[in-house]
């Protein structure tokens, strides 16, 4: 996984729980070799999994909760990097389509080793959308957080309902996104 995600995670922990918590997490980690990640590098996926588990232990919250709130914080940082691709979007649904068809593709072009999830949309109506999340990383809750973050960016309120989830043994991760 891209170092940028780890950098974002470090910032997220530091902002919400202080530098010491972050250092403590890194200290407990067996896989992470340094508290500092380089955004352009690629790191082993397992490192993130381990960091998430440790965080969950220390803070006493579930991994999915961490991921969702992490996504919310991570979004503006990712957005910073993607500014020049999104000038045309003015709402969350168009933007999500753009993520799948432009932003994540640009990410892969810029770094062929990068791996982004597939986010396939099914717009049912003007305020309802189904989103199928597919990734071997199975961090759908991160996606959920990112969507909340994105909605925030466009000054929109959304509710996200996990209709089915691979973590529950379903075939897909399906989310129903409704704007108010």
């Amino acid at each position: 996984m891209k170092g940028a995600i780890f950098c974002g995670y470090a910032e997220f922990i530091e902002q919400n729980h202080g530098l010491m918590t972050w250092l403590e997490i890194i200290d407990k980690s067996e896989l992470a070799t340094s508290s500092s990640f380089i955004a352009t590098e690629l790191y082993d996926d397992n490192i993130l999994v381990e960091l998430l588990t440790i965080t969950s232990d220390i803070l006493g919250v579930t991994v999915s909760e961490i991921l969702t709130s992490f996504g919310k914080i991570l979004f503006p940082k990712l957005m910073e990097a993607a500014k020049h691709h999104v000038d045309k979007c003015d709402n969350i649904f168009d933007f999500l389509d753009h993520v799948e068809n432009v932003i994540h593709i640009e990410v892969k072009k810029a770094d062929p080793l990068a791996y982004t999830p597939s986010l396939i949309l099914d717009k049912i109506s003007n305020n309802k959308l189904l989103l199928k999340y597919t990734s071997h990383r199975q961090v759908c809750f991160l996606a959920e957080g990112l969507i909340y973050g994105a909605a925030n960016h466009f000054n929109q309120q959304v509710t996200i309902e996990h209709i089915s989830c691979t973590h529950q043994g379903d075939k897909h991760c399906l989310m129903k996104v409704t704007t108010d």
Partner: protein
Amino acid sequence: MPNESDDRLEVERLTKHITLLEKALRDERASKKIAEQKLDDIYQHRYDSYRELVSALEQANHRQAQLQVLSNLANYHVSYNSTAEMLTHFLQEISLLLEDASVILFDFKTPEQAISYKLDKENNNLVKLLPKRTDISSLYSLVGGNESQWQRITEKLTHNHEISAFLEHDFQLVFTYHRLRNRVNLVIIDIPHYCYSKELKQTLDTAGQQFVSALQKRSTEEKLANNYEKLQHTLKKLTSMQNQLVHSEKMASIGQLAAGIAHEINNPIGYVKSNLSVLNDYILLFNQAIKEVGNHLPENEELTFAQQDIGPLIESCIGGVDRVAEIVSSLNSFSRKEESTELQPVSIKDIINDSIKIAWNNIKYNSEIDLKCTEDLPKIMGHKGELQQVLINLIVNAVHSLEEQGKITIKAWANKRRVYISVSDNGCGMDEKTKNKLFEPFFTTKPEGQGTGLGLSVSYAIIEHHKGEIKVESTQGEGTTFELCFPIANESIAIA
């Protein structure tokens, strides 16, 4: 308390230290970010120049994948023979593309009266869903006029409780098309979501359009083939009717001719015959007289011979005249239009059996008879003697066609309207020319003096009089089959 103030100083020092370190860390992070950003920019720049190339390649790949699918579809559309098979195959394929979603199909002229089917994926066919027709007009109106296009239904289908009982998900995918000019099909795919790539959606659309156009093409083909078959059939019927007309016309004119001849011959034959018998009597008188004056007459050899010969001469004249009279009466029966004989319900089986008995002397030497009558043959309206005449004639003809040993098969069967009889032999068969003249009076294949050539023509007249038909099939060297059919006697006629 020097210690305390020392401690405080130490803490202050450390705090300052930490603050500085934190500031250093922040600076470090900031410059790292700048460096990373630069790196990113470089990457970005480098890849921007490839972008066009990559997207062109992607498009090409995308197109190739589409083409592949479409050509597959086109292939199977071509190779499937019935539209029903094509439809199930298409639905099966679509269901597979959409993760085995279940498929419901409606077929209707008006949406208020739709027949519903379900795709049975295991057996690859469509099975009836509801026993009765169902009203899907509200569903149909949701689709609007968008034909041959996949469409999401974004309203829950609660109006029709009958259908919604079979639907698992909230928002279905629908496709409608005209199966025939006035018959519409509506396909419902019960999907949990329609989160599919643009390519897949496009492929679905194209597959749908291809299917519809293949269907239309196929139905035009089927229509054409149907029409062609009908035309062929009509042509065949017309040709056979024409043949029949020509034939009956021919028979009718021959009949008239025969009647004319018969009439012309009848009178002279009548007085020749009666004169002959009078002549015979006169000769007896003459003979008597000659006998009485016998001794007074001079020896005359020629007179003696004439006296001896005259008896047989008259005899053979009478025989000849009788034969002519017989022929004339046959001719009469051939040309007779309004039959005086009354028809009664008769059993074909009895008639066949009697005919075999009568013809037995002809049959027994060189042929075996195989008789196959179905049980409970209905009666026909007929004249027993005449029908026997026909059958005996056919049997004797069959016997004559046999070279040395042979077999004659007689069958009788019936359908709802007619009784059929066939007489087949495995004899010499006949050529086209013979077949065409078969029913003409005086046509015979037998050596001169052995047949009048009236048998079949008289049979023909009898059969016509019975409102029946006679057909012949023959292959030279293999044999001949005559097939007769007669209308079944129905109660009202039987009583009348």
